[in-house]
């Protein structure tokens, strides 16, 4: 069916050229989006790239019914989010087990240094405390300047639902940040 050129990593060649050209276009268009969605959950570049790769591999399997650009992006965002959440939860369980034996400091990425490390840690902690359906709205609205309409399109939800979730998310975020500031 589709075979990719091994020696030339920039392009792909197969019998179904139109199919591969479209998929390459989607990869250029949505690769960073999938990565950022995963990064918004995992905060580790390598893990986020792994999750984005997995999401693209799954997207390739379903690509015949995902050839529409908007449908593809929405599907990719939701899949990346779910995969990232799954990995994040399994990592948390694993870290919790390991910390019983070897207490370790939370990893600090270079991106966290853009914002002060302490503020970034507070922010991530507050976001992690939100319910999943509020958390994804906050993350998606912070990526690539998505407005409510674009988030609604990516989530396949009505705009009103996204608006109310965004309101609740911001309210919860403010409370969490205040609690974290007071606890210090």
């Amino acid at each position, binding site marked *: *069916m*589709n*075979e*990719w050129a*091994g020696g030339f*990593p*920039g392009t*792909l060649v197969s019998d179904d050229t139109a199919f591969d050209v479209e*998929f390459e276009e989607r*990869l*250029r268009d949505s*690769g*960073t989006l999938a*990565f*950022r969605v995963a*990064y*918004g959950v995992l905060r580790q*570049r390598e893990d*986020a*790239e792994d999750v*984005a*790769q*997995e999401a*693209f*591999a799954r997207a*390739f*399997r379903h690509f015949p019914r995902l050839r529409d650009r908007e449908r593809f992006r929405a599907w990719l965002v939701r899949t990346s989010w779910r995969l990232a959440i799954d990995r994040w939860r399994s990592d948390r369980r694993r870290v919790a087990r390991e910390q019983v034996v070897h207490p370790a400091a939370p990893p600090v990425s270079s*991106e*966290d240094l*853009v*914002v002060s490390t302490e*503020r*970034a840690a507070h*922010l991530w902690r*507050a*976001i992690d405390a939100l319910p999943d359906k509020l958390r994804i709205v*906050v*993350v998606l*609205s*912070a*990526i690539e*300047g998505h407005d409510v309409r674009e988030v609604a399109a990516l989530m396949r939800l009505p705009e009103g639902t996204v608006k109310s979730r965004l309101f609740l998310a*911001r*309210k919860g*975020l*403010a*409370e969490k*940040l*205040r609690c974290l500031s007071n606890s210090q």
Partner: protein
Amino acid sequence: MSFEQPVSAAEADLERLLAIEPSAGFRARVRERVAAESMRGQRWSWTLVLVRAGALVTVVVALLMPILSLDVDRPTPPSAPPVFLTAVHRPDAVPLVVRSEPIPAPRIARRRTASPAPREPEVVWDARGAYAIARLVDLAHEGTIVSAPSAPERTPLAVQPLSVSPVTVFSQMLQQD
């Protein structure tokens, strides 16, 4: 609202934190991963084809097995004695079905005639017996047959009357009790 200002600052921080680009080799790794996925998909597709073909063959064999085993395994029943049907012509019978086309003339079996009464068995004499009978007849005609002397008159035997003593066993048993 009261939470607008800190949340706006947090959102601005979040946007900066998420304005991150994947590494340079990200797309190439995605292509490799998808290529591997494609190859695995091809292998799976062949495997699926083989599995489906095997399942189809199994189903066909399962369906045909009873039919084939009829000829192979089923024991032949003992042959029943042949039944011969004989049509009997009844001139007064009314046909059940009326056909527009001409009905071929039925093949009428020949009525079986009643068999004759069995003859008495023929008495067969051997030559000497036949000669003796013929000689007896001739002598009877000639009147030369001498009747045998009559047997002496027999006197009946005198039988003494039997005297049976009464049975005493039962009375003895009663006395013993």
